[in-house]
């Protein structure tokens, strides 16, 4: 059994049936999967437990999180349970809210990536990329060819590291404790490369409006090649360890099923949408960077269950490695950031020689560069789905409004519907298969 036998690749453009979408919307409202109750009411009910004089209480309100090993940080679920069966549920969030979007309005466009990179901490380069692409669209600048390919190389490696993290947490949630350490170990290999290039393991602030912060260091090619050698080997091991494992299959197959129409009605994207059989991937359908020049497959599932989402992510890592290989082959030479003195700070050496360079340097780092008035929405395909950045500029050096459409946030909506009538043990598998990053949800 290999990971690639359930997911298939689909090159046809998706066709939407509007009547089916409407029907799905009606079904989703009618299934009463969402616990529409204030937290206060739920707390009142939660005091009501165990046998009463009238007999056994048949429903129990159970609070899962925000401090719980498998709610991926600080997600909180209020579950209405009948024994071990979940009837209705309500995801509660906001425990990691730090006002990053609002803070984005106080930071200049140059400082922006430092802020947004902290949103999705498992794949920080994608938020940086979306922010930078949006800013560049407003500025109307074209990033040099080498920067485009560096961005592609780095984000694809980041997709691999993010999926590796998913494999680790998914394994742990299903009880395969060893998997957790294997996943973290392989992710660390990728992070080591990131540290070599960007100086940091996470929160890189590497992709900035105008290009990337620094050129790839000497020896980067060998490092990437050694990564490409190690990771497939390890993925093979995981495939043997998990994919064909009967317990693993029984725990994931047919659990957390969602249809294409339901996923679309709820706005779910990424592996959740693809697991239902709809081949929607922004890299192919609305190409950005140089994705139209690389060859890769969009992996889709058939059943829309947790197992499909697991194997899609496993297969996507192979696709990412395919793209990384093409990046290695096609990496052009040239500038790694745009040579526009108003946007790009001058090199340190130039400051000592040129008065003009000193002025530019001073202006960029004190007040930043002004961005033309306008609004823009740019979306990229993050490991979790469509990650968009919406910026409104009033012509000053700081965005008037900066909003990030976080895929984890929207994907959380699918939880109550996927959990309806499943066991408590399944809820853990379902949360895990949605792979939410709470930093991105709460922003």
């Amino acid at each position: 059994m290999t990971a690639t036998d359930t997911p298939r690749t689909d090159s046809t453009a998706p066709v939407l049936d509007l009547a089916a979408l409407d029907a799905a919307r009606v079904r989703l409202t009618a299934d009463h999967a969402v616990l529409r109750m204030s937290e206060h009411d739920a707390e009142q009910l939660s005091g009501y437990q165990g046998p009463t004089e009238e007999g056994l209480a048949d429903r129990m309100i159970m609070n899962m999180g925000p401090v719980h090993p498998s709610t991926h940080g600080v997600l909180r679920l209020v579950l209405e349970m009948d024994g071990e069966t979940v009837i209705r549920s309500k995801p509660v969030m906001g425990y990691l809210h730090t006002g990053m979007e609002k803070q984005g309005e106080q930071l200049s466009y140059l400082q922006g990536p430092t802020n947004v990179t902290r949103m999705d901490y498992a794949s920080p380069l994608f938020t940086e990329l979306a922010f930078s692409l949006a800013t560049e669209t407003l500025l109307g600048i074209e990033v040099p060819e080498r920067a485009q390919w560096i961005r592609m190389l780095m984000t694809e490696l980041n997709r691999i590291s993010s999926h590796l993290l998913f494999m680790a947490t998914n394994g742990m949630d299903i009880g395969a404790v060893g998997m957790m350490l294997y996943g973290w170990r392989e992710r660390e290999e990728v992070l080591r490369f990131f540290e070599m290039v960007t100086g940091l393991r996470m929160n890189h602030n590497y992709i900035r409006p105008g290009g990337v912060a620094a050129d790839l260091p000497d020896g980067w090619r060998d490092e990437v090649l050694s990564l490409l050698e190690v990771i497939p080997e390890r993925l093979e091991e995981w495939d043997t360890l998990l994919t064909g494992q009967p317990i693993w299959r029984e725990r994931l197959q047919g659990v957390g099923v969602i249809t294409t129409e339901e996923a679309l009605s709820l706005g779910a994207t990424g592996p959740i949408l693809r697991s239902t059989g709809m081949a929607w991937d922004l890299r192919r359908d609305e190409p950005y960077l140089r994705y139209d020049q690389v060859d890769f497959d969009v992996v889709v599932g058939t059943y829309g269950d947790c197992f499909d989402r697991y194997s899609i992510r496993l297969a996507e890592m192979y696709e990412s490695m395919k793209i990384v290989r093409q990046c290695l082959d096609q990496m052009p030479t040239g500038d790694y950031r745009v040579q526009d003195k108003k946007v790009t700070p001058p090199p340190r050496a130039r400051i000592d020689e040129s008065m003009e360079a000193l002025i530019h340097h001073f202006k960029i780092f004190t007040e930043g560069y002004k961005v033309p008035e306008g609004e823009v929405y740019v979306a990229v395909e993050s490991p979790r789905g469509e990650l968009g950045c919406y910026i409104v500029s009033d012509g000053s050096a700081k965005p008037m409004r900066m909003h990030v459409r976080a895929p984890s946030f929207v994907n959380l909506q699918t939880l109550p519907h996927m959990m309806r009538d499943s066991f408590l043990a399944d809820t853990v598998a379902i949360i895990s298969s949605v792979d939410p990053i709470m930093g991105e949800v709460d922003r």
Partner: protein
Amino acid sequence: MSGAVLGIQMAYWQETLLKLGVGLAAVLLLTGGAVYLYLFKFVSFMQSRLGPMEAGPYGSLQLLAEVGKWLQKEDIFTENADRFIFGLAPAIVLSSTFLMFVVIPAGPSAVIADLGTGIYYVLAMSSLSVLGILMAGWASANKYALLGGLRAAGQLIAYELPLVLAVIGVVIQAGSLNLQDIVAAQSTGSIFGWDGIGSPYILTQFVAFGIFMIAVQAELTQTPFDMPIAESELVAGYQVEYTGIRFLVYFISEFATAVGFAAVASTLFLGGWALPASWGLSNGVMHVVGPLMISTKAILLVGVVFWARFSLPRFREDQLQTLAWKFMIPIALVNIVVTAVLKVAF
């Protein structure tokens, strides 16, 4: 039961005290050894890490550090907990564990109580722990603990059956419930007339051995059967409100039970303390060799338990029950019938 131990005349109470002391020390030593060897080191190597390295050479004193840590922790009772039941539960679980060891023989007369109904007593004592777990789950006044306690009750009772049914095959073959007789039957037996290694029942009762080990895994609530404490679902199940020494008691009893069941399995299926008959060592020598034999076998079997624990993902509650009732119990019943028929035929 009064008589000579290693040639020294003793009163009954002296003999019992000696056996209890030696037994307790042996159980704790074996448990500690198994925890260090498997939980700390074996698993670390499986997961490509080093495990404890600081406390003592290669972290060998880590367990003492852990125990010291747990003893220092505050013993917390939650506000709504049923204090008496909550406090009593770990003691019940622990006593169920230690009572198991009473009849497991480690030498010709190295057994605390040589009961005629030995194996029956072991199984009865081991199933007492479910009471303690249920008490803990209920008295904690915590929904996670309650779910864990109920899961444990359902699971332990379901797997009690295949455990007992697997043992019946051995009992039929040996013709006795007494563990010493079962050991003797294996060491004096022969395989098609060849008596080089006696006749350990794993050769004839391999089906029962498989079922016994799977059921043991479930009775110990080790992964893939660890739903009662499933850390990713129920945080820690029935143990969730326990701290300090009471948590330590659960910890000790979990691993001591593992050693206990492994010792029972090696007595039933691997020939127990005995060396194959043809060695013909005297009883005195066997009092040294016997404990070593059964300890080695038990430790190896504990290793199998931990190997499975850290390799497999966790079952879901309904899948666990399906496995017990639809597969293991029917197979165990067929095994009994086949054993009985062959016993009569030969």
